[in-house]
C-alpha cells in the first residue's frame, strides 16, 4: 500500500511524515511525530481526550483523517507552555486541583484554550459548553470549570 506525504505545522514547527491511507491525525501525531500529549480514549469522538486545535479551531484528532491536516497548523498541549513557563490555564489547573489521573487533561486544556482564545471573559455556562465534548471520569467537572474561570480572570489581570 502506498504511503501519502503529509506536511503541516506542528506547534509552530514544520513537520513532514508519510501516512497510510485512512490513518487518523491522532495516530500520526503520536506514532509518527512522537507527540504523546493528545491521548487515545475511544477513537469514536466520545471522550475528547484527543482534542487538538487545527488553524485555531477545536478538532477531535481521532476523527480527523490525517491527510486533511496537510498545509494546516496543528496545536497540541505540547506547544502550550512557553519555554519553562506554564500557560495560565495549566497553572490554574494545578492550583485548582483540576487533574487527578490527568488522562482527560490534555483534551480539557485544548478545549479551554479554544474558548479563551476567542472569548477571554467567558461565563460559567460558556465554560460548560466549551468542555461539553470532553469527558472526565475522576476529577469531576467543578474543579475544571473553576480552573478555566480562574485562568480567564488571571489572563485579564495581566492584560
Amino acid at each position, binding site marked *: *500500500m502506498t504511503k*501519502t506525504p503529509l506536511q503541516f505545522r506542528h506547534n509552530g514547527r514544520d513537520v513532514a511524515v508519510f501516512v*497510510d*491511507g*485512512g*490513518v*487518523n491525525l491522532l495516530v500520526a501525531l503520536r506514532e509518527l511525530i512522537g507527540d504523546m500529549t493528545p491521548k487515545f480514549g475511544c*477513537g*469514536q*469522538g466520545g471522550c*475528547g481526550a484527543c*482534542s487538538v486545535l487545527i488553524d485555531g*479551531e*477545536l*478538532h*477531535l484528532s*481521532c*476523527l*480527523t*483523517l490525517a*491527510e*486533511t491536516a496537510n498545509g494546516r497548523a496543528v496545536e497540541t498541549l505540547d506547544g502550550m507552555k512557553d519555554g519553562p513557563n506554564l500557560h495560565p490555564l495549566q497553572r490554574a489547573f494545578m492550583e485548582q486541583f483540576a487533574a487527578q489521573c490527568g488522562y482527560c487533561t490534555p483534551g480539557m486544556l485544548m*478545549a479551554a484554550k*479554544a474558548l479563551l482564545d476567542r472569548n477571554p471573559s467567558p461565563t460559567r455556562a460558556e465554560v*460548560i*459548553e*466549551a*468542555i*461539553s*465534548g*470532553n469527558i472526565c471520569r475522576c476529577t469531576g467537572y467543578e474543579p475544571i470549570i473553576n480552573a478555566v474561570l480562574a485562568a480567564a480572570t488571571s489572563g485579564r489581570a495581566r492584560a
Partner: protein
Amino acid sequence: MPVTVKTFASFGEAASALSSDRSARYLGGGTLVMRALNEGDISISTVVRATDQALSRIDVASSRVTIGAGVTFARVLAERELAFLHAPARSIGGPAVRNMGTVGGNLFAPSPYGDFTVALLALDATVSVQGGLGARDMPIEEFLQSRERQSGALVLAVSCQRPASADAFRYRKIARIKPKGGSVITLAAHLPVSGGRVSGARIALGSMAATQIRARAAERALEGRALDDSAVSAAAAAATEGVSPADNALGSAWYRREIVGVHLRRLLSGLE
C-alpha cells in the same frame, strides 16, 4: 487495514469516482466515516474527498438560502442570516463536533443522529445531488425515503425558503445530557400563519422512525385553524400516528411514543 484516499479538486470528479466504485465512501467532516475506519470497517476500501470550494459556500442573498454540503455547523452558527438554523446547529455534539461535522453528512447520519436534517425536513428543503447521470434537485422527503439508494451520489447543497417569521419556525431536541447528548426525540415545526390561521404546517420528527419523518396527522390537525389550545391538543394527540420508533440506550420505543405528544404540545405552545 489501509484504505485508498482519493482527493479531487472538483466535485464533478469526486462524484464520478463515487458513482463508479461501490466500496467508496465520501468523506465530509468525517465524524462518522472516521469512526467506522477506526473500528476497522472493512466495507470501506476507498475514501473520496473533494476540496472544491463550491461545496462550502453559503448563499443568503435571497429569500431562499443555499448551504453547501461541506458547510460545518460552526459556520452555520457564525452566519447571522441563518439565525433560524442556529438552534438545530447548536444542538449537535460538542464544539469540536460542530467544527467538524457537516450539513451534508447530517443527511446520512443514522438515528439517534441527524438533528439538523429534522429542521431541514420541517423547512421543506431541497437537496441537490450529483449522481452518475448528472445533477438533480429533489425534495428532502424524497431524498430521505430513498437514502439507502443514494450511496454513490454526492450531495452538493441543501436549500430552503426562510421561515415566514422567526416565530413560525420552532425546534426542540430532547436529550438526557445537557449540553451534548444524543436525541431521545427531535422535533421541528414550520407554522406559516395567514389571516390568523395556520396554512401549510410542516412538522418533522427525529428518532421516531428509521429516518426523519413528518407527523402528517398532527399537521392536518393544525391546518386552517388558529394555533390555540384546542388545535394544539388535537395535534399533540395525533403525534404518534405513523411513527415506528426503536429502542436504544437513550430511550425505549414505548417511552418515545409516550412523550412525543407532550413535547409536540410544548413546541406548538411556545413553551420552553
